């Protein structure tokens, strides 16, 4: 996919430089200092226009922390994130409107990322209102619902009236509404059945082409990354164990950790 703009031929959009994130763990003793956990230990990442990058690693490898920092949802202990050259500084939502217009997110579990008291239409309208996009947005709501394969006639329904796969489609529609340039997806199909998973991956792949989206996908499943991403970054204990073109890394993984991850993927 994304035959154009390969290998960073497009403009540099998101750039993370020497990211470090240290969490201080809860006190386990009244004496001594609190232990620290290095979730990210110096990670660089460049997202060019048209790129599709998979961030893989086990639980605790730092991949979600990286996604949160890229989104301006968490502050790195050291290092910087820029979008089109402008520094991303975590802060109140209003201060990050410029970033949210272009960089959107889909989370793992749609059941907890969609507000159960809002209708599908209200959910999709919310980012547009929040980002001060002019207009009443009705046309846009119908447009993105159709794009993700949900009948716009059901837009007055609430999240619980949709199946898990449809809920994730709604979450994708919400992310698409402001017409972003970059989509950050944190384990977008981990909560879904295998058959629904395949449909959502097909949908995402199609949307990337239609909307000229760049994709950063966080996943513990190398099979998912294999079908979706041109590039892969393997995180291990907060550091990059290996990175490169997905096909090359998967064909000949040089790092033992990558080899272990690959060996764990079921084969059919």
């Amino acid at each position, binding site marked *: 996919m994304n035959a154009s703009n390969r290998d960073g031929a497009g403009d540099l959009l998101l750039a993370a430089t020497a990211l470090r994130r240290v969490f201080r763990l809860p006190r386990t003793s009244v004496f001594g200092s609190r232990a620290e956990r290095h979730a990210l230990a110096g990670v660089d990442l460049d997202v060019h226009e048209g790129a599709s990058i998979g961030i893989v690693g*086990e*639980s605790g490898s730092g991949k979600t922390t990286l996604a949160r920092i890229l989104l301006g949802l968490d502050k790195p202990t050291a290092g910087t994130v820029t979008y089109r050259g402008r520094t991303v500084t975590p802060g109140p939502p209003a201060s990050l409107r410029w970033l949210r217009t272009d960089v959107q997110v889909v989370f793992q579990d749609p059941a907890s990322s969609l507000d159960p008291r809002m209708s599908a239409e209200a959910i999709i309208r919310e980012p547009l209102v929040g980002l001060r996009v002019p207009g009443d947005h009705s046309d846009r709501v119908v447009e993105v619902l159709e794009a993700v394969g949900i009948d716009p006639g059901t837009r007055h329904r609430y999240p619980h009236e949709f199946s898990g796969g449809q809920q994730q489609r709604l979450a994708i529609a919400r992310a698409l509404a402001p017409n972003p340039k970059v989509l950050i997806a944190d384990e977008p199909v981990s909560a879904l059945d*295998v058959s629904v998973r395949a449909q959502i991956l097909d949908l995402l792949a199609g949307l990337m082409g239609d909307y000229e989206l760049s994709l950063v996908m966080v996943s*513990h499943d190398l*099979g998912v990354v294999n079908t979706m991403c041109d590039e892969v970054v393997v995180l291990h204990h907060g550091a990059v164990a290996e990175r490169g073109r997905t096909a090359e890394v998967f064909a000949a993984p040089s790092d033992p950790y990558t080899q272990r991850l*690959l060996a764990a*993927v079921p*084969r059919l």
Partner: protein
Amino acid sequence: MSLLEVRGLTVAFGDQVVVDNVSFSLDGGGRMAIIGESGSGKTLTALSVIGLAPETATVTGSVVFGGEELLGRADRALSKVRGEDIAMVFQNPQTSLNPLMRVGKQVAEPLRRHHGMDRRAALAAAVELCGRVGLPDPARTVRAFPHQLSGGQRQRIGIAIALACQPAMLIADEPTTALDVTVQAEVLAVLAELVAAGDGASTALLFITHDVALVPAVADHLLVMRSGAIVESGPVAALVDDPQHDYTKQLLAAARKTALR
């Protein structure tokens, strides 16, 4: 004679039939997988076998285990069977383990209950079981509470509890769905190894999953369920190589999308 013989199992909630006339049999030491999407009735089929279907459900048909009919038996009589003859590993060890009890005591519980072991002997057996499911430093691990263990370690505890009494049959309902891919591979390996290794007679396995890709690692016979009914069944290798039913083909295509070759 088969170890488990299910005939015409039907589960309904009021007028809504969610498991429809399901029949299958499992031999001693056999390994069978049931696959299907959410809502296909696969979990309810397994739960009905050991009398754990919700009370609001009407269960009819016949479930003969070791020559005895289980359907319609009183809960008291069934609780003798559960854990001793038929054990179960649940999807989410986070919710299936007791958060307030040290894990060693939880592994020892079925041994004390069914085999009448005293506390010390049961705990010693629990340490040995924890070692067999591949937990590091079992003597220390048995003193941990569930929240102190990782997801994969918790599921290993779930397997240790299930295998404690060397049951004739183990039902594993999506035992790896809540786990990372690497941890999933480890847990499946432990499960397959222990089921086969049972001292003397091996344990029969009924493995429930939505992911066909996991099946070849643990089972040799496959049932495909859709909307409460079995649409296709047969040896795993044959079904994976040459599926007949369209639905089986769909499931395989979906699984192949994210499996490596």
